[in-house]
């Protein structure tokens, strides 16, 4: 009898261990403003202009979401570096989606919607140049 009890107990322990190994249904990732803090490499592509163009930017993002002046710049194919100003913040609460804007050379790019990967080191997003013209972008944390 006690042998049977031991058998049942060990089977129950085994089942519990297996249950712990099976991952629970994945919840949506949680992100915060602080996940943006640091230096990011952004690439913007704009397809409406003739010819289409890209812009490569380095943004140093502060805990407030604002870009650090003098450490945030953009350059295009001409390789002329221009200062960039802007801010990026979560769309709501702990969501991993963000919105904001960037101003480069007097031109404003709306960052309408961006999403952070679960690894917290990569963003993809869509936006509008001068509020009208579509642009897409990606960003990698340096």
């Amino acid at each position, binding site marked *: 009898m006690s042998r049977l009890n031991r058998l049942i107990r060990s089977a129950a322990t085994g089942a519990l261990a297996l249950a712990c190994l099976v991952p629970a249904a994945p919840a*949506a*990732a949680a992100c915060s403003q602080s996940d943006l803090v640091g230096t990011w490499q952004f690439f913007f592509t704009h397809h409406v202009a003739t010819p289409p163009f890209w812009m490569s930017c380095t943004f140093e993002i502060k805990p407030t979401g604002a870009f650090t002046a003098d450490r945030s710049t953009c350059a295009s194919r001409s390789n002329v570096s221009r200062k960039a100003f802007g801010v990026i913040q979560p769309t709501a609460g702990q*969501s*991993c989606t963000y919105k904001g804007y960037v101003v480069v050379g007097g031109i404003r790019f709306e960052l309408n*919607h961006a*999403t952070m*990967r*679960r*690894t917290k080191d990569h963003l993809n997003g*869509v936006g509008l140049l001068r509020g009208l013209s579509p642009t897409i972008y990606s960003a990698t944390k340096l």
Partner: protein
Amino acid sequence: MCRLFWSRLAVALAFVLGAGQAGTALAACSKADLAGLWQYYVITYPPAPASIFQPTRDPYWHSCTFAIKPDGTINPQNSVCTDQAGQQTKVSGSVENIGGSTCIIHGTYQLGSLRVSLTRGALSRGKDHIDGAGSSPAGSIVFNATKL
């Protein structure tokens, strides 16, 4: 002694070959990896006009949330696309792994009257990001998706 040497050598070779194969093996994915909530961005490039009398159309994007069920169906109840102007449209459709267990996916979705084909997408090894390309009657598309 000699037999022992050769058998040890065979074991070592098998180990090395096995390790080599593991390093180059392709990642495996399943439909279950697609289940969940995804943030999807797509840019559509309309084709060039058929004649000089027709206007050129600019590329445009949609930002979408896709709720994918374990069977690969895009749940229209909580899947929606927003266009550049902020107009929202519900979407339905399905996605699946090509060949059943590869990390290459394909699928289709219906956005209003437009049927969009996701010709080929690649799921990252972290199973949280997809890059891909496809088409619709409105033009060629390039897309990416991030698991929320």
